[in-house]
């Protein structure tokens, strides 16, 4: 469809103010924070595809009408809300439409009896958390993107928060939701504490990254907010594998501190001033909930950890982490790494306890050999389960500021090692950032024989393949 006609048609649906063709708005809504894009933008290069416009519906009906129109004309659409993606997940298709849910914002209902809150897709998580805190509740969901993220995107990417060992990921927190299918049909999955009526349809949309529909509203669990009850402690523990073994024992015994973070010796020195002997990891723990439970968890894990030879570092490292855990969000558009001539980013994977330590070691061994310009590679575990944990790799590599076109290749050479070592050992290549477009090429190996089911879902719900092309699916059959 010719662009002028496309814009006119969309304005007919959402009104004049609901469609923007301003290049700055389009550029801003196309912005992805993956490391090499930040480097490119630092060099003044905006190499993401250019959408025809940004459409900002104000309610579910408008979303429905917009998608019905786009689907009937097979025009590609990319859903977005907060725009904190680091996976190329919100970059549009050339000439396509950005479907911006940020104007659908606010708390629709707080149900204190049923302990849940219903919010619109564009509600900022930080606003929601503050709103709940004032009323004595919390979402229990604190991703690092908290200052930027909005609820729709959190569900779509299968987000997880820093307190996940107690509260779980967003998939555990979602009670019900409303979504619009690519053909414009509005569906609602009702709120229920649990159901046994067939597959859990919520999970089709949670983590779909906008490929199967547009989430317009969600009902989330809430919890009593009592930070005064917290038990906090930092420890140092020798060696990453030893630290991982301690985490495994802790979770195997059934202890669920809300925060369980094991930073390797490199991060410990780089980010925390090394309040631990050289070569030691830093372990940060926080338990919350009723005071008696938090205290009991603290006592229990302290006993377990002493068996692993930890050194008690007191509370301050935890308090410091709490204070600064989301600082990165304020620096995203400052290009500080570009100015240093570096690309920096993170990459999170997960694996069973039996494999995670080997994956960590293999990545740290291979990347310096295979990426000549690597500046640093390190990692931490920040989300633990009885069956395994994640490793959040943090890395930096030197790049030529005068050759920003080389940044992507350098970046992906690090990612390739992490993906390969993870897949080789049966791990999962994305713990909570999602596939985006940059991990799609590894999806066949990630899903194996189940990958075909994903395509059947895609073809059933989005037969025209208009929704977020290039994400999760290598192509659409």
């Amino acid at each position, binding site marked *: 469809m010719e662009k002028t006609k496309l814009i006119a048609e969309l304005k007919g649906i959402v009104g004049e103010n609901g469609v923007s063709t301003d290049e700055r708005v389009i550029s801003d809504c196309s912005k992805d924070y993956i490391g090499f894009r930040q480097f490119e933008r630092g060099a003044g290069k905006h190499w993401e595809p250019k959408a025809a416009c940004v459409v900002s519906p104000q309610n579910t009906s408008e979303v429905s009408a917009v998608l019905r129109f786009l689907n009937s004309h097979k025009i590609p659409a990319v859903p977005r809300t907060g725009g904190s993606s680091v996976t190329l997940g919100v970059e549009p298709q050339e000439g396509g439409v950005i479907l911006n849910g940020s104007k659908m914002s606010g708390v629709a209902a707080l149900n204190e009896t049923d302990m849940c809150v219903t919010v619109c897709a564009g509600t900022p998580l*930080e606003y929601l958390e503050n709103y709940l805190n004032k009323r004595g509740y919390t979402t229990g969901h604190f991703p690092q993107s908290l200052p930027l993220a909005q609820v729709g995107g959190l569900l779509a990417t299968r987000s997880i928060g820093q307190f996940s060992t107690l509260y779980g990921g967003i998939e555990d927190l979602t009670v019900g939701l409303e979504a619009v299918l690519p053909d414009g049909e509005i569906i609602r999955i009702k709120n229920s504490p649990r159901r046994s009526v067939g597959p859990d349809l919520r999970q089709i949309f949670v983590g779909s990254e906008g490929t199967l529909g547009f989430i317009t509203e969600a009902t989330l669990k809430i919890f009593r907010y009592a930070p005064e009850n917290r038990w906090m402690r930092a420890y140092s523990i020798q060696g990453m594998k030893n630290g991982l073994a301690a985490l495994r024992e802790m979770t195997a015994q059934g202890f669920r501190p809300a925060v369980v973070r094991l930073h390797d010796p490199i991060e410990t020195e780089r980010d925390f001033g090394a309040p*631990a002997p050289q070569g030691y990891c830093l372990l940060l723990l926080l338990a919350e909930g009723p005071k008696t439970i938090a205290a009991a968890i603290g006592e229990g894990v302290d006993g377990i950890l002493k068996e692993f030879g930890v050194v008690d570092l007191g509370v301050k*490292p935890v308090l410091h982490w709490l204070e*600064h855990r989301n600082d990165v969000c304020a620096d995203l558009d400052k290009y500080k790494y570009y100015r240093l001539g570096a690309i920096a980013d993170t990459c999170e994977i997960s694996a069973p306890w039996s494999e995670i330590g080997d994956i960590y070691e293999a990545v740290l061994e291979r990347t310096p050999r295979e990426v*000549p310009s690597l500046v640093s590679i390190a990692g931490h575990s920040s989300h633990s389960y009885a069956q395994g944990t994640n490793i959040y790799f943090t890395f930096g590599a030197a790049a030529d500021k005068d050759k920003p076109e080389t940044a992507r290749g350098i970046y992906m050479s690090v990612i390739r090692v992490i993906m390969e070592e993870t897949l080789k050992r049966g791990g999962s290549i994305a713990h909570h950032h999602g596939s985006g477009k940059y991990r799609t090429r590894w999806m066949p190996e990630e899903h194996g024989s189940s990958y075909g089911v994903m395509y059947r879902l895609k073809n059933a719900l989005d037969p025209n393949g208009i929704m977020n092309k290039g994400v999760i699916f290598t192509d659409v059959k």
Partner: protein
Amino acid sequence: MDDKGGTLKKRFARKIAVCFKVVPDFVQALAEDWENFSENTDLAYVKRVINCFDESALEIALRIKDGGGKIGAPVFCIALTAADALKTSFSRTLFAAGFDRVEVLTDGAELSGYTGGLRTYGFRDNAASAGGADLQEGDGLRTDTELSGNCGVNIAASGVGDNAVSGGAGSDFAANGGASRFGFDSMRTAEKLAERLREIAPDLILTGRQAGCADSGAVPFYIAEFLGLPLFEASTAAFSGGVFLVETDVGAKIEVSAPCVVSVGNGGAEGLRISTLKEVLATAEKTPEILRAAKYFAAANNPKIKFAYFKKEKKCAVMTVGGLTDLLKSGDF
């Protein structure tokens, strides 16, 4: 070309010493620690960084070295700090970046990459005593001297003389760690650095303009005074067209002759160049020179200082079309 090269070789600084300091990243310190700052305040949880002005000085030295290399005039670069210890990561960073020697002036205390357990980074005497100005409205504090830097933390000094507040490039042991170290005595810090610099006899001494806890900027001046050398304050410095030039904050370029002391800000070089992991790993055999001689140290007479911290409150509100007015009216944000 040959003539020019010959001139450059003749006039080129052959030995450059850069005074630097590793400091806690104070912006990361907990508010409660600023509010209750004392010699026993534990800042061990705060990451350490090379003072930003000193980073500029270090980088400028390496650029001069690069320039010398291009014309066949080798330059020997020494990084010098006064501290109770220097973490291996910092010394390896400096070696990987191109420094030929790293020296640590210490008082003879046991040195290692880390001594274990929580450490106290504090001040020897009277660190938390009252003095200076009170908390004002706005970010950070207003104090006797408006201080630069991005940390939002300012420091007041009482009993002010020129040497009351230390800082400036080189060293101030309080920030580097260890209880029995120099505090904020710029003069004595500079005196001891100067003693070592006299032995090194560099053609050029580069320092960051100010550093660490107190940012007085006095150390470079004292070093120059003790060594009897001219001092130039510059935003940056470089060899250009066969002469050594310093550029001032207002853009004036001054040709200077070695030996001299140049105190630089952080406008000319954003920071120390990054090194690849391979380059860092290649420095495994290189270790800093530890100069334990007690002569470099003596009891310090610390001034009384007061620290404070002021945190800006942040608010988050949902901006809905047509709803902003209602939201503001409700006050529920």
